[in-house]
């Protein structure tokens, strides 16, 4: 009977292995209808909403935990949150009327005094809040009554309400004795249940929430840095929402039948930034030649499968306040480019450098390759320098030594021309153009809050930028995403990823 006992032994081993394997075969995050898992590219670094400006990670998670006066809806419009109503009393005074009965989980009131304390905290030099720059123009915060707060600014600040959609409130009393970088006290729809740094953060619905009950009981934010792994997690049914999917993966995800992927235009404009201080970039005809030489439509079709939109000769997309609908992109015309090059009188053997921060923008490295080869086609000598994003920023802002050209993506969180265009105003740390007329227009734009006047001024400013070929305007970077079949999510062009924008699919 030795054979029998051997068979019995193996059967036993197999059964044991199976018993061990069974719990493993269930998807890792056993998902019921009331929970949702969102994949993030980077982990949450700090839980202090005043110490981070990272919308796609820290602030998205914190928007579930802390209240804000306003929120930006998926259609990119502002919607009321703690503030039921907001008005401009005059050019430099904003008034906010707050919801009644709002409290933090420890019972602290979320009232005008709490709003004032938070605005004072970010402006306090001793605190060193990382987002202090957003509130530089705020000069005074006044509690009118417990549910009304007035904010004075030192000069008109039309985008102030937009900026407040990224500003979250801490409980003042609690913050005195706790470290908000690592601890939380909820005043929003969710509360932190578990935080494993670098891996995941789990939120549970806040039973004491003063607003509407959220759709999901549990929200998981999982950090998955590698895009291939993010897509795999979506296809395996472990996560319900991923962003930053390469456009080439969209078809594969849709074909799998497990999830749905697509892209919308983001608020991020891709451009070849030009350093006008370096030879031969001061030459207008040369810059125009660059704009004619690059086939924007071709890039959009070949690299992004048509899922991106060519910029209309400006860095603003139609979502921005101040977008100029009259501008049209420079057409792809290599002959015209060659002619302009000749007229420019520039020595074609002048070596040109294009910098690109590596793996920073969606398929940005490939786009740079195409740009360089198209510039070579019209006879230019082009070299690509791929550098690390930190080194790139350092070179740009601190060393002030950008190459003649740099492939870069720009977005401004308030989705307003003021801010986005200011990065090209003389004196700004980002500016390499130094055009006094442009600077003057932006100053005028900032001196008024009248929307019609502002639109006229920004139309002039964007036209100047286009005529002067201040940059090579490329395309709107697509905001790509993949959503599981279990939930719905309205795609958006900015970086917010929030469970309260999702619902269970019926």
């Amino acid at each position: 009977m030795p054979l029998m006992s051997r068979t019995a032994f193996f059967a036993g081993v197999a059964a044991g292995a199976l018993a061990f394997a069974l719990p493993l075969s269930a998807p890792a995050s056993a998902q019921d209808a009331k929970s949702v898992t969102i994949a993030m590219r980077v982990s949450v670094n700090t839980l202090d909403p005043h110490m981070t400006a990272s919308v796609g990670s820290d602030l998205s998670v914190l928007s579930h935990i802390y209240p804000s006066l306003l929120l930006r809806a998926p259609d990119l419009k502002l919607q009321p949150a703690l503030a039921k109503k907001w008005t401009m009393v005059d050019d430099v005074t904003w008034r906010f009327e707050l919801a009644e009965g709002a409290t933090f989980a420890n019972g602290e009131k979320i009232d005008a005094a709490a709003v004032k304390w938070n605005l004072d905290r970010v402006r306090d030099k001793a605190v060193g809040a990382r987002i202090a720059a957003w509130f530089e123009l705020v000069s005074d915060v006044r509690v009118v009554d417990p549910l009304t707060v007035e904010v004075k600014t030192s000069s008109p600040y039309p985008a102030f309400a937009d900026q407040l959609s990224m500003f979250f409130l801490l409980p003042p009393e609690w913050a005195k004795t706790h470290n908000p970088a690592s601890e939380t006290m909820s005043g929003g729809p969710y509360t932190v249940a578990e935080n494993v740094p670098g891996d995941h953060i789990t939120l549970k619905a806040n039973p004491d929430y003063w607003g509407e009950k959220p759709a999901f009981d549990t929200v998981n934010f999982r950090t998955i840095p590698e895009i291939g792994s993010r897509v795999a997690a979506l296809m395996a049914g472990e996560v319900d929402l991923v962003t930053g999917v390469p456009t080439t993966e969209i078809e594969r995800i849709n074909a799998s039948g497990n999830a749905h992927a697509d892209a919308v235009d983001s608020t991020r404009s891709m451009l070849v930034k030009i350093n006008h201080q370096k030879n031969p970039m001061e030459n207008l005809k040369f810059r125009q030649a660059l704009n004619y030489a690059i086939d924007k439509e071709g890039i959009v079709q070949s690299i992004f499968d048509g899922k991106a939109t060519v910029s209309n000769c400006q860095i603003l997309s139609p979502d921005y306040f101040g977008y100029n609908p009259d501008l049209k992109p420079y057409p792809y015309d290599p002959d015209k480019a060659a002619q302009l090059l000749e007229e420019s009188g520039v020595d074609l053997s002048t070596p040109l450098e294009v910098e690109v921060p590596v793996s920073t923008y969606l398929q940005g490295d490939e786009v740079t390759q195409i740009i360089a080869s198209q510039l070579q086609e019209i006879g230019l000598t082009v070299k690509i320098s791929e550098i690390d994003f930190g080194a790139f920023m350092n070179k740009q802002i601190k060393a002030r030594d950008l190459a003649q050209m740099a492939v870069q993506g720009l977005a401004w969180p308030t989705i307003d021309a003021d801010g986005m265009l200011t990065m090209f105003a003389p004196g700004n740390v980002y500016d390499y153009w130094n055009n006094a007329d442009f600077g003057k227009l932006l100053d005028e734009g900032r001196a008024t809050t009248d929307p019609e006047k502002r639109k006229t001024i920004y139309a002039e400013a964007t036209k100047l930028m286009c005529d002067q070929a201040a940059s090579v305007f490329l395309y709107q970077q697509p905001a790509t995403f993949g959503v599981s079949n279990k939930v719905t999510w309205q795609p958006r062009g900015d970086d917010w990823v929030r469970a309260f924008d999702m619902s269970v699919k019926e």
Partner: protein
Amino acid sequence: MIRYLLTKILEALIAVWGVLTIVFFVTRIIGDPAALLLPLGASAEQIDALNAQLGLDRPLIEQYITYIGQVFQGDFGQSFQFGRPAMQVVLERMPATLELSTAAIILGTLIGAVAGSIAALKKGTMAELIVMIFALLGQATPVFWLGIMLILFFAVDLGWVPTGGYGTISHLILPAVTLAVFVCSSIARLLRSNLLDVLKEDYVRTARAKGLMPRTIFIWHVGRNALIPVVTMIGIITGELLGGSVVTETVFAWPGVGRLIIQAIEAKDFPVIQAGVALIAFIFVLINLAIDLLYGLLDPRIRERR
């Protein structure tokens, strides 16, 4: 022996101090963190103000002296990104790294030792050829590719294990196997060539002539001598793995120190880079010390020389 240990510990301290110094100055060369920590549109004054707040505006030598002074008190400073003590941020990630490296080393060593022994003892047979081909493939396969393939097959298609993340044994399987493939290939190849060398030695022939059991010869005469270079290699690999296996951690979303340090380098979070590298250097030194002591166990001649 005590004297030997003390010398080794002193050497170790000097090595760690050297690493700390190099890391300090290299991080200062790679650039300025303030531009990355502040939101888009922060003015030059705000950038300068943050640098002053972080103490980065002071002369380099003054910063260095303060830093070394703090390190002696066990203080590695506050992380720029996390707003918490840098060493705490690093230590939080250590369990994940320990778990993964231990699993990979044990798995890799066991498989590597068996495979290497088979290849040596069955020299010239099909078994040797198969083992050697797999070992070569294992060493040559990029970890990144192997990781993604394992995920696609075992996690997406079969659904046996999660695609990534941390927490349970099932999360550990794929990253540990991925790393173990490399570990066992290296060990199998090294062990095989060492065994073949030792098998040719006179003392092995003598042992055979004495009529000792083949098992006894293999364990006591061949194995012990062939293991010395292998132990060194296991030590080096362990040190490397404990420093975090960046690629594996990234592919499998494993929250280890390797990924943390890369993130800190990208964000120029100096205190975290320094704390992380200091800890890794310390671990490396400890492992080296352990290997030195192990040599003594394997080879009495080394023990007597001390």
